[in-house]
């Protein structure tokens, strides 16, 4: 029993907070946020304890992992799955990052969501519940010791993201209200959920393939060197081979996991969901972007990194690197063209996670993890600073117009509506600036420099195409970072709302300052030892701690090379400088169009600008491919129904009609004729009979007549008095009964169901009675079914009362 066993409890407390808030305390906002923050805070403390225990643990060459398992968790036939927590340096690093940022974010959101003011968000408590659950699921993903548990939490995270994104589901914009469309937050939530489900499908396929090949999903088994080698050697039959050599199973699994990670981390084919998510509160955005959903994808790749590198040739590695680099450059260009600050930051997240994934694809495993961390801190700083800005601008906009603060008054998120906030919000200005600089890798002082630079160095060794792509993406990053700083904070205020802005409360800026410290200071944990002048002043702690992935040879800290460092520096600083020259040199004026847009229009490239602004129309492509495709399918189905099913019914009817007409004709012409014939024959016969009757029969009959008359009078009276009475009585009874029964047919489905259950109950009672007669029944089942009966009777009474 060591401190590390506490790791079991880390996801528990936020989860308990979620349950408590959602079920009991959501009406009490103060208690709810206390529970939410408390849950995350306990999780934070436990994580810190585990992290520092791991750090202080004696190491042997940086490769160690602690595992605590619960065997026999899930039995399936003869096999069983175990569950447990798995703590290795990656887990420890994530344990340091995730709860810290989550905690600061939820503390920040108390004021952001206007606690204890009249403008408090109507979903205040639910926000804290969902944030707690999101943190808990991320901790579950980080801590699990097998991919099955990871997958379960992965799916749970989809749910949390969806819930957080559509938090303000009842706020459609005026145009949406007219057309009856759902609000944009609901649409964004749906898009996220659908993208997530697509990713889950790939993940599940990967899991199935892995399990059928290895018979286990625990990291200990699947990442052992023998297993990896076997996976890499076994060819995968089913897809055509690439360049002569067949794909190994390891490669296929790695690509399936890549697809899952890409959908979560919003990379190239799936990035359209993240920029749509703008309607939810900014703290929720900070969680989604930095610690949880978007990071979870990259974390999955880091976790399954041994599969990526299994085998030689590594086609999967090339795919990963290319995909990451492509996403990075595409979305950093898209970020330049955004006016809405939240969309710009979303594209920036996509591009930075692209860096991480590209790093993994090039084998820069430690650098990828490091960049994931530094990006989390810098992006959290940026998003929360943005939250301060937009909140203040929105409030002063409402002061200005004297109306209630709604987001309809003017869009407070548009950068063209800000400007000149540096003097009015100095603390926020500095945190935002530092966050931006850290994001764009401002040299030496910020953490983003050390991680980004490390990735560039690996890219330089790996492939020149990827190096140049990433370098250009880096300079685009610098450009849009500087653009945001200039547009929001510098120059003169361009709207009255910006004019009236003032600094936020310390409760919001203090978490920001703490985040800023990490956005800067984290870099000192991993300064390469060979870096000139300052290398070796502080130990390259991260490389020593994380070392190398499970099952791979340990590589020492990298050697220093000049060219990539200088080129990366030049590109990053060049981007910042260009941004300053474009936007900062001469501040933007009120009503002025974006300078890049104007410039592009001058050279007839405004289509390119528009494409970048719309995220290169990926959403539209999906819309056409999926939504239109579905509509097409639905129309096809409708047409089938209309033309084939309906027509066949119609023709069946016609056939029936024709048959009946034929029958009618037969009746008229054949049956009637026959009947007439019979009739006439009978008449002839009866005439003969009548003659016979008159002559022969009449005489005895005349004698019998009076007797028969008397008898018939008796019989008639019996008929009238007794038989008719009985028949009429039956009729009256049937009529009365049917009136009663008729009341049952009242069209209420629940009544029908009630009577059906009563009937089932009667049958059951009869069955139990028979069993009881045979003295054969467990007494307990009698109790069970008595319970059934009791509840049913209650429900019948309640139902009667309602209707």
């Amino acid at each position: 029993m060591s401190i590390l066993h506490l790791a079991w409890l880390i996801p528990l407390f936020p989860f308990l907070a979620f349950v408590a808030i959602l079920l009991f305390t959501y009406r009490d906002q103060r208690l709810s946020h206390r529970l939410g923050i408390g849950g995350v805070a306990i999780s934070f403390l436990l994580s810190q304890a585990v992290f520092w225990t791991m750090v202080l643990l004696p190491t042997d060459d940086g490769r160690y992992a602690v595992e605590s398992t619960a065997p026999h968790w899930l039995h399936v036939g003869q096999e069983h799955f175990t569950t447990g927590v798995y703590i290795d340096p990656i887990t420890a690093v994530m344990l340091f990052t995730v709860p810290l940022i989550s905690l600061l974010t939820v503390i920040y959101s108390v004021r952001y969501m206007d606690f204890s003011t009249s403008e408090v968000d109507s979903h205040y408590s639910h926000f804290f519940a969902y944030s707690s659950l999101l943190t808990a699921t991320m901790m579950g993903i980080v801590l699990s010791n097998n991919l099955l548990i990871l997958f379960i939490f992965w799916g749970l995270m989809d749910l949390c993201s969806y819930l957080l994104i559509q938090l303000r589901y009842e706020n459609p914009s005026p145009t949406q209200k007219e057309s009856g469309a759902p609000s944009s937050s609901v649409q964004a939530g749906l898009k996220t959920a659908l993208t997530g489900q697509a990713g889950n499908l790939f993940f599940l396929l990967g899991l199935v393939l892995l399990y059928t090949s290895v018979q286990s999903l625990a990291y200990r088994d699947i990442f052992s060197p023998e297993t990896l080698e076997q996976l890499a050697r076994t060819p995968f039959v089913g897809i055509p081979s690439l360049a002569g050599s067949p794909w190994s199973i390891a490669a296929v699994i790695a690509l399936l996991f890549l697809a899952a990670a890409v959908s979560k981390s919003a990379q190239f084919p799936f990035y359209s969901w993240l920029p749509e998510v703008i309607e939810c509160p900014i703290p929720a955005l900070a969680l989604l972007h930095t610690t949880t959903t978007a990071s979870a994808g990259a974390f999955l790749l880091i976790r399954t990194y041994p599969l990526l590198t299994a085998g030689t040739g590594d086609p999967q590695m090339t795919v990963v690197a290319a995909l990451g680099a492509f996403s990075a450059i595409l979305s950093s260009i898209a970020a330049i063209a955004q006016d809405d600050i939240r969309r710009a930051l979303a594209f920036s997240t996509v591009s930075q996670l692209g860096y991480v994934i590209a790093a993994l694809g090039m084998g820069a495993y430690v650098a990828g993890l490091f960049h994931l961390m530094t990006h989390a801190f810098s992006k959290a700083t940026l998003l929360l600073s943005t939250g301060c800005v937009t909140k203040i601008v929105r409030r002063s906009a409402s002061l200005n117009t004297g109306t209630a603060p709604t987001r309809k008054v003017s869009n407070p998120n548009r950068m063209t509506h800000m400007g000149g906030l540096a003097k009015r919000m100095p603390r926020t200005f500095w945190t935002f600036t530092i966050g931006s600089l850290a994001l764009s890798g401002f040299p030496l002082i910020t953490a983003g420099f050390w991680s980004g630079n490390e990735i560039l160095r690996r890219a330089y060794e790996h492939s020149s195409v990827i190096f140049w792509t990433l370098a250009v993406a880096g300079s685009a990053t610098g450009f849009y970072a500087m653009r945001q700083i200039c547009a929001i904070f510098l120059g003169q205020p361009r709207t009255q709302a910006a004019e009236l802005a003032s600094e936020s409360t310390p409760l919001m800026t203090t978490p920001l300052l703490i985040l800023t410290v990490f956005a800067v200071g984290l870099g000192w944990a991993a300064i390469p030892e060979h870096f000139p002048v300052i290398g070796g002043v502080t130990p390259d702690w991260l490389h020593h701690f994380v070392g190398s992935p499970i099952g791979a040879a340990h590589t020492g800290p990298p050697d220093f090379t000049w060219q990539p460092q200088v080129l990366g520096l030049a590109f990053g600083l060049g981007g910042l400088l260009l941004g300053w020259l474009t936007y900062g040199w001469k501040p933007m004026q009120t009503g002025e169009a974006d300078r890049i847009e104007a410039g592009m229009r001058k050279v007839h490239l405004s289509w390119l600008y528009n494409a970048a602004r719309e995220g290169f129309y990926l959403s539209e492509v999906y819309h056409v491919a999926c939504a239109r495709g579905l509509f097409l399918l639905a129309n096809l189905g409708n047409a089938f129904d209309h033309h084939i099913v309906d027509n066949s019914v119609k023709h069946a009817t016609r056939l029936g009609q024709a048959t009946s007409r034929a029958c009618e004709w037969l009746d008229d012409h054949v049956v009637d004729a026959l009947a007439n014939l019979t009739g006439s024959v009978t008449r002839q016969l009866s005439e003969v009979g009548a003659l016979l009757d008159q002559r022969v029969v009449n005489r005895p009959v005349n004698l019998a007549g009076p007797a028969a008359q008397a008898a018939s009078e008796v019989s008639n009276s019996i008929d009238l008095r007794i038989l008719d009475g009985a028949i009429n009585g039956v009729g009256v009874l049937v009529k009365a009964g049917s009136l009663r029964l008729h009341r049952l047919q009242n069209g209420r489905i629940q009544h029908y169901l009630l009577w059906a259950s009563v009937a089932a109950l009667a049958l059951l009672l009869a069955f139990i009675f028979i069993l009881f007669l045979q003295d054969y029944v467990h007494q307990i089942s009698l109790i069970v079914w008595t319970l059934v009966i009791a509840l049913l009777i209650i429900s019948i009474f309640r139902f009667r009362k309602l209707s």
Partner: protein
Amino acid sequence: MEPLLLPGERSSTLQGMVPLEWVLLLAAALFCIGLYGVLSRRNGIAALMGIELMLSAVGINLVAFWRYLDSETMMGQAFVLLVYATVIAQTALGLALIVAVHRTRGTIVLEDLDLLKESPRFPPYGED
């Protein structure tokens, strides 16, 4: 109460487990709660939730009998998974129907949905 054991059942794996009857009680209770929900809730979606509960009770029963009587194979689990796939499909269908009803009739209160009542073209018996 002794747990239900078939002759030849591996009693060792069942020792220390909750007796089967308790699990069945749980399922029965869940079933009754679900039935109560279906019968008494006026909201269509809530009634649908009741149906979900009843189906969950069915799932619990299946798994319980599998675990206690036939845990050598995985038929019970596979069957329950199949049941749940069906449940999900029927929920999707039910929700779609509720949305459609809401669009056409403007309500999802089950008591207002009485189209199954006899058509006014045929006056009720006995009122002529």
